């Protein structure tokens, strides 16, 4: 009897277990699965960014979001007091977020490891942290416009905006993976259960053509220049003219990458690639090169500069309304003669002028690997009036971006090759390194023309009307530019964009530097503002690259 009773008891016990398991595994299966089957997204590590010498410009760093579970808090006042001290924020701002009726409240994001450790030591009940990563910039905002920043999209996912973060977002972000494991009540994996893991593929690292030391030189000098010449804003672009690898690109004012959200959107704009302006006299060498290439002029041809030139109802004059009589083509560049340029333009012909503007890539994107590039504007041929062909010879009446300007200029001094500017030279993934090679877009002028124009530009620097504090013993070529700014269709004489584009050493250029200053107040002329700034930068670069004097 006793045995039967025990047997029945066992049967009832096992039956109860079987019924319970049936309920858990079959009837309530989907709902209960989540309690022991955990699927976690594995976030890839976002790719890092290094300069050409593998010095880090963007890394990832530990970051924590602090939360409070109000139901677990024992002493609210003490908690507020201690957190306020640790986070260095007002008690009221924490208190405002702390809704005691909720189960979970986010308090503060972007905390560093040190801040977290400090709060951990306080041993506060109800306080916890979620682990995140954030971007870290060892050189702060040295390359703000190049790098861009990491923000969120409308799904709350990380997404790169502007610059490299925007352009290479797909490469940098990587691919997420997931892990699905059955866990016991303590969160430990159950070995005989489901174990599935698909690893995340980390983002690719970028190795740039940028040299952070050159970047530092340009930024420091540009900052000094803006201050000295009281300019509103400015840019410096330094490139290797043979490849159009960008060595430095700085525009000021810029913004703090870590706190980008505190800045107005206008600060995000990279003037070097997205701002259209009339280039002024720095444009002249391009037209001269085109005329040389077409054999319409020779450097020593003579032009009789007698006075103003009438084009339709407009009169074109030199910047100081002074005329030297018989001058060579080289002298036209040296004294930046607008009337001389109109003469060269006439020799070249309207059709050829337009053709060369297209050949130099104006009106098209350069294809630089930065997000936010503007294509410039080259109005259709049919809309061109005779005055347009005349003014474009000295860089007025055409809208270009600084990057288009430096690219076109590089083509006339590098042997005639219009190159695609680029900033990333290598994309490094876990098992592959993709090298990005310099790309020739087209041949614009011949080697012979390039050699001649380089000599003319050296002469332009040496015999210019302004005398600069140039590094002695070095041959440097270049051209100044002063463009008036059109405001509501009328040029305001007091507001100019002053620029200088130059290269050194002239025989075999190591660097090509373009300096643009917007609305300088100490002087409106490029020769008195952008040019001296260029020579300061050139001196630093000559020392940095160890270029020997040639004279």
């Amino acid at each position, binding site marked *: 009897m006793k045995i039967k009773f025990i047997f029945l008891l066992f049967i009832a016990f096992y039956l109860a277990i079987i019924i319970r398991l049936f309920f858990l595994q079959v009837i309530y299966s989907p709902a209960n699965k989540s309690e022991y089957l955990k699927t976690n997204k594995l976030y890839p590590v976002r790719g890092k960014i290094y300069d050409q010498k593998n*010095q*880090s410009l963007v*890394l*990832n*760093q*530990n970051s924590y979001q602090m939360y409070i579970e109000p139901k677990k808090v024992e002493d609210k006042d003490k908690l507020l007091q201690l957190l306020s001290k640790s986070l260095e924020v007002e008690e009221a701002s924490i208190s405002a977020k702390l809704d005691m009726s909720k189960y979970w409240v986010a308090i503060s994001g972007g905390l560093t*490891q040190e801040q977290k450790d400090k709060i951990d030591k306080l041993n506060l009940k109800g306080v916890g942290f979620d*682990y995140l*990563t954030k971007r*870290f910039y*060892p*050189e*702060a905002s*040295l390359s703000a416009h190049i790098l861009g920043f990491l923000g969120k999209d409308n799904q709350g996912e990380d997404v790169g905006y502007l610059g490299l973060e925007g352009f290479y977002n797909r490469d940098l972000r990587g691919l997420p993976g997931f892990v699905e494991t059955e866990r*016991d009540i303590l*969160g*430990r*994996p*159950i*070995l*005989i259960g489901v174990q599935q893991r698909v690893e995340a593929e980390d983002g690719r690292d970028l190795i740039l053509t940028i040299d*952070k*030391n050159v970047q*530092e030189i340009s930024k420091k000098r540009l900052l000094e220049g803006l201050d000295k010449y009281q300019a509103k804003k400015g840019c410096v672009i330094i490139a290797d003219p043979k490849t159009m690898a960008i060595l430095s690109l700085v525009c000021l004012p810029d913004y703090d990458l870590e706190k980008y959200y505190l800045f107005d959107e206008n600060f995000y704009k990279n003037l070097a690639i997205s701002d259209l302006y009339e280039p002024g006299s720095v444009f002249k060498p391009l037209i001269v090169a085109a005329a040389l290439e077409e054999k319409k002029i020779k450097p020593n041809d003579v032009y009789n500069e007698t006075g103003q030139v009438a084009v339709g109802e407009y009169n074109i004059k030199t910047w100081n309304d002074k005329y030297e009589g018989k001058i060579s083509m080289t002298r036209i560049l040296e004294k930046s003669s607008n009337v001389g340029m109109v003469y060269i333009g006439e020799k070249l012909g309207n059709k050829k002028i337009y053709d060369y503007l297209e050949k130099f890539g104006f009106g098209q994107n350069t294809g630089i690997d930065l997000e936010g590039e503007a294509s410039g504007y080259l109005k259709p041929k049919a809309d061109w009036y005779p005055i347009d062909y005349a003014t474009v010879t000295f860089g007025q009446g055409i809208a270009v971006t600084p990057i288009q300007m430096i690219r076109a200029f590089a083509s006339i001094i590098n042997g005639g090759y219009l190159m695609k500017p680029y900033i990333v030279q290598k994309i490094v993934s876990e098992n592959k390194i993709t090298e990005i090679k310099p790309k020739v877009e087209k041949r614009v002028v011949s080697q012979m023309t390039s050699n001649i124009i380089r000599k003319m530009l050296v002469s332009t620097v040496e015999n210019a009307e302004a005398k600069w*504090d140039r*590094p*002695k*013993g070095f041959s440097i070529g270049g051209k100044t530019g002063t463009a008036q700014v059109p405001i509501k269709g009328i040029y305001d004489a007091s507001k100019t964009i002053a620029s200088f584009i130059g290269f050194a050493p002239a025989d075999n250029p190591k660097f090509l530097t373009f300096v643009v200053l917007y609305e300088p107040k100490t002087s409106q002329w490029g020769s008195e503002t952008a040019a001296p700034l260029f020579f300061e930068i050139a*001196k630093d670069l*000559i*020392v940095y690259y160890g270029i020997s*004097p040639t004279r």
Partner: protein
Amino acid sequence: MKNIFLRTTGLIMTGLIIANLFVVISGIVISDEIDNFEKKTNSLHRFNLTLEKEVANLGSLKFAQEQAKEFGFTNSTAPQYIDQLKYAQR
């Protein structure tokens, strides 16, 4: 005969229970180890990021400038020879 059957069954059951206990305990121990390794991996990953930050800071221009200032390099190393070649050629 019956006794032999009962004893054998008992032994087998005891063996199975011991084996089961061993498997369960081993499973728990290994699970614990996996859990610990996961925690250690995460912790190492975070520590790596911290070290990477420190290395980057030590290689930064800001640090170099601070050091140069501290050791008084900033004035004495100004390159004079660019404008005054005679010094460089001596």
